[in-house]
């Protein structure tokens, strides 16, 4: 794995800022593989103000600003998204040198066409939405708190987006495990029939992983030795059918968490690097304050960036892998 020099430089550029914001850590789904605790709710008002003040403080020196909305389910706090984007657009009027982009990872349950068009208008141009295969499997894994399936509503919402004019990207992430493996080819056909001619919809087929959730033992992950081979075969099938493959999987991209200009801001104002191991002690970088300043654990931040200099592929792929906390004494 090679880290491009461009990526190396971009990861250290002080005029770039990549914020992953969790406007709420609550979720309306109870996916069997979820690793989040869903204990914390909506982003506190002081944190929202902190985000806006941080952007104000940084705006004059920024060339690139990317905001990624994550959760929980971020559309449960859509008003916060609107609030922050309103502030961003005010800053963009004053600082025209800033290139701004925004994306969202959502379960799409509340992503009606009306909501989508509103978000698009505000600058959210990329959407990542997951399916656990066709309806019979998705409805067993991505469920509401009462156990009801969610496929029909999500599929209706996503297919409705085809009618929306304009530029945007929808990445449909298809999870594969031993349970749904045999059903994926038919689901690929279903996707081809629905989206195959529309290049704005891209497909990201990947193996379902155990990421530390309380029901990880229920996940029948693909067998390690055959995992890559099976996923590659499914991607090849999708490609042969004319589906647009999400291109990032073709080239090695380091984890976002190695970038020195990337921060996750949790709903309570805690700053982390990684959105998966949210509560891992080594993932606690500091706090965003209401005035927009940050208190950062410098040594820990730098430890997560070590792969940029060592070029160690594992430290670039997942900085938490082999992580030795410099602050643990």
């Amino acid at each position, binding site marked *: 794995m090679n880290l491009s*020099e*461009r990526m190396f430089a971009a990861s250290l550029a002080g005029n770039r800022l990549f914020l992953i914001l969790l406007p709420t850590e609550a979720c309306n789904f109870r996916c069997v593989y979820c690793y989040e605790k869903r204990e914390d709710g909506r982003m506190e008002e002081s944190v929202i103000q902190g985000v806006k003040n941080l952007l104000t403080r940084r705006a004059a020196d920024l060339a690139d600003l990317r905001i990624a909305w994550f959760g929980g389910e971020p559309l449960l706090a859509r008003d916060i998204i609107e609030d922050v984007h309103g502030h961003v657009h005010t800053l963009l009027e004053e600082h025209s040198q800033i290139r701004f982009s925004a994306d969202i990872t959502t379960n799409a349950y509340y992503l009606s066409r009306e909501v989508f068009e509103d978000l698009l208008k505000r600058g959210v141009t990329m959407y990542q939405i997951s399916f656990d295969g066709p309806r019979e499997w998705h409805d067993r894994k991505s469920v509401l708190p009462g156990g009801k399936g969610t496929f029909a509503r999500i599929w209706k919402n996503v297919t409705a987006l085809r009618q929306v004019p304009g530029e945007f990207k929808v990445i449909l992430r298809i999870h594969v495990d031993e349970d749904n493996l045999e059903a994926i080819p038919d689901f690929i056909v279903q996707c081809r029939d629905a989206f195959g001619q529309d290049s704005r919809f891209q497909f990201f087929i990947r193996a379902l992983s155990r990421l530390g959730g309380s029901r990880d033992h229920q996940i029948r992950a693909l067998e390690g030795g055959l995992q890559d081979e099976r996923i590659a075969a499914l991607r090849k099938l999708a490609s042969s059918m004319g589906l647009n493959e999400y291109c990032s999987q073709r080239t090695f991209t380091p984890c976002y968490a190695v970038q*020195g200009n990337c921060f996750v801001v949790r709903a309570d104002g805690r700053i982390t690097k990684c959105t998966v191991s949210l509560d891992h002690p080594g993932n606690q970088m500091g706090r965003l304050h209401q005035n927009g300043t*940050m208190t*950062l654990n410098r040594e820990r931040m730098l*430890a997560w960036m070590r792969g940029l*200099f060592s070029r160690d592929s594992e430290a670039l792929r997942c900085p938490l892998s082999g992580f030795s906390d410099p602050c643990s004494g």
Partner: protein
Amino acid sequence: MIIGGKAMPPEKSWNTNDLDFDENGQLIIKNPSLKYYILEMMGKSDPDAVPNPNCDGVLIPQGCAGGQAGPQMPNPNCETPITAGCGDSGKCEITIECLIKPETEEENI
């Protein structure tokens, strides 16, 4: 200092000790050569651009690639007027002293 021929390669001696953060979470690059390298890489409009074969052998941070002078990022402390880079003449006229000066080491990129 003039860097000749091609872009300066990364120095193996760079490490996380060359970095810091300010109160806004903004990266501070403490090592001038690393700072220059980042400026050079991020200043290119096309990261895959190749040097103009007509260039006289001096590659500057923002010029030469494709024979066009790129956008200039002059150091405000530079005392020498900065001219366009390797344009039609094939001559590159900017030296690195105009982009990185010792007294700017602690500035953010």
